[in-house]
């Protein structure tokens, strides 16, 4: 930078040299204060460091948020599933069949006919009647009938009548045994229904 200035000056004719020298205005080379490089470097590295650390922190916090997100999502899923299971249980408890069974175990019966009490006049509307077996509701199916193979006839052992008994008694015992046998079988069938 300084060299072209020098060249210019050399071409100027030399008279009153010192005066010219004094009066002459020259471009003063800008004084460059040798700014210390250290602060600049420090600043840059500070900025850099802050950026890196900031980015790191940001990433870490994002990652943390992601962990939390995953964990919370899992928890939400679990709770939603739990809610649904509980609702299902509730619906199973509300099953009319279960409620009817519980009511029956408490000794409750179906009403015979609807009747209303008019609160204003105290009048009963409808014909209240007693509940009987005729209007009971059977809430469970009858158990299936056992196949014949699983339902053998009663094993009847015929015992000789004691010798002391008369012939007449003997002859009357015969049909009686038969009826008893039939009755036993019928009773069994009924139980199996």
């Amino acid at each position: 930078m300084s060299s072209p200035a020098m060249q210019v000056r050399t071409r100027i004719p030399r008279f009153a040299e010192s005066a010219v020298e004094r009066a002459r205005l020259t471009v003063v080379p800008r004084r460059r204060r040798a700014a210390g490089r250290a602060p600049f470097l420090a600043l840059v590295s500070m900025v850099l460091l802050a950026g890196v650390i900031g980015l790191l922190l940001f990433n870490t916090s994002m990652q943390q948020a992601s962990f939390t997100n995953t964990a919370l999502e899992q928890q939400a899923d679990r709770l939603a599933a739990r809610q649904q299971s509980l609702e299902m249980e509730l619906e199973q408890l509300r099953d009319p069949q279960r409620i009817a069974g519980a009511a029956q175990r408490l000794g409750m019966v179906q009403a015979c006919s609807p009747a209303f009490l008019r609160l204003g006049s105290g009048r009963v509307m409808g014909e209240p009647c007693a509940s009987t077996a005729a209007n009971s509701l059977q809430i469970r199916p009858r158990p299936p009938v056992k196949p014949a193979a699983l339902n053998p006839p009663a094993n009847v052992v015929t015992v000789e009548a004691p010798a002391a008994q008369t012939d007449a008694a003997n002859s009357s015992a015969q049909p009686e045994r038969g009826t008893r046998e039939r009755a036993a079988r019928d009773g069994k069938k009924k139980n199996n229904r």
Partner: protein
Amino acid sequence: MSSPPSHAPTPGVRRGSPQLRLRIGFLVIAIALSVLGARLVQLQGLDPNSYAQMAAAEGTTEVELPAERGDILDRNGRPLADSVAGMMVWADPELTDEHAADIAAFLYKKLDVDYVSTLAKLREHQVDGSDVRFEYIARRVPATLATEVVEEAERLDYEGLGTRRDPLRSYPAGDVAANLVGFIGTDEPLAGMERTFDTLLSGTDGSERYEVGGGNRIPLGESTITEPVNGADLHTTIDQDLQWFAQRAVRQAVEAARADSGFAVVMDSRTGELLAVADDPTYDANDPAGADKPDLGSRALQGVYEPGSVQKVLTVSSLIDQGLVTPRTQIVVPPALNRDGRVIHDWFGHGTIHMTLTGAIAQSSNIGTVLAADRFKQGQLYDYLRAFGLGQRTDIGVRGETKGLLPPLNSWTSQLEDRIDFGQSLSVNGVQMAAAINTIANGGVRVSPSLIDGTATTDSGQQVGTDHTTRKRVVSAKAARDTALMMERVVDPEVGVAPGAAVPGYRVAGKTGTAQRVGEECGCYDGSFTVSFAGFAPADDPRFTIYVVVQNPRNGGGGGSVAGPVFSKIMSYTLRRYGVPPTGTRPSRLPVEW
């Protein structure tokens, strides 16, 4: 660079030619760049997708976001079918083999699976020489239970158990309305509303793609999400409790009469909404495999039968509407009626009796009805029956509904018309007939029945539901009222045939039916019967119409003794449930004889 020209290197052999070196350098760079360029074209130009996929597959997870299936609800919003988050529990036999016995015992306790077969699955890691790394242990387990079990197994150091999504459909009330609701198979709906309204219920699955590192989603990584569209709920007009009651009442009657099957239809007289369509035998929707195939549908809609004397209500109301008869019309009823060689009898033996038309209904006289119906002109009855809805589907949204069979008018002979007068030689389905009888209850206006609250589209594209209810006058209000008064005499303990159908304190109008039944084997009348009872209450301001049918009772009972008490029970329960007080007016006193 700023060196003065004097410093420029003079050409010299010793330091080599820079031009040449530059050229060679450029050439090398050009070659290298063109190689990279070619590679770029190869990657991006020729087959970019497969490479993109390979890149994406590395660490990218795609999960299905399942749409939740809509519930099927009853009229009070209680679920008849309910979706629950479910999971399957599976095992890797290679890992479970070591502690197989312990794990099997553990699973048996927790999941109630069969011990022996589970043990075999846990051990069987070689089948035909190939490795087995996956065995189902339990399917459709509620998600909470499945997760709990697998977590506990991990705590106990049992390795090789896992879970996967496996949605669960639950039918909380088991067999209640199973005939209508249907059920779902392993992958698809197989029957009933589940299948008919599948498009509405199933919704659309969504999906989500995101990058994963160490089990966690990478923030700011690629992430695309397609939200699932959940299925909509299906609202029915069924009343779950009433449906349950009706099913139990029908089952009790079917069992007591040792009958083949039975059904009951409960209808709101004014709106045509079906409150219950009970079938027996039916099945548990949670275990459809355990039922006989014919029980998996609804006989009330899919079965046909001849309605028998219940049909007389339609015949007589049409006659009154035409002004041809009145309830007091006097008829001389002979012991038997010979019509062109075919003899018509009544169900009870009698000499020549003097009945009013009311008497013919109250005593269910075939001869009396046929004699009264002689006043019809050709084709008149046919038009009325069409208007009552016979021979046409009710289209309420139940698959496989039958049309019934109303013989075409050109095939009607006088003998056929005689038989149709009292409900033989034509067939119907249950809901069709209930809607026809309900026409009388609704003052002569037929209101189309519906099973869906609001509107819904079936899989065949048909719009069904209460929003599409149609009303059409069939007989005059006076004809309907007169018919109802006549029907009231049916349940009269002195003059009627079905005192068992009465509800104490209420005016009940009804009609019995005992029809010869076409057997499945011979396709002819095989001596078995279809017994039925249709009626409504309160007779002077009807709220509910109930129709009960029992097929082939083996205890010798008729419509009055088998179906009547079921009607009474269900009607009594319905009136109580909906808080309908007795009207308190004087019952019908129409004369039955003259």
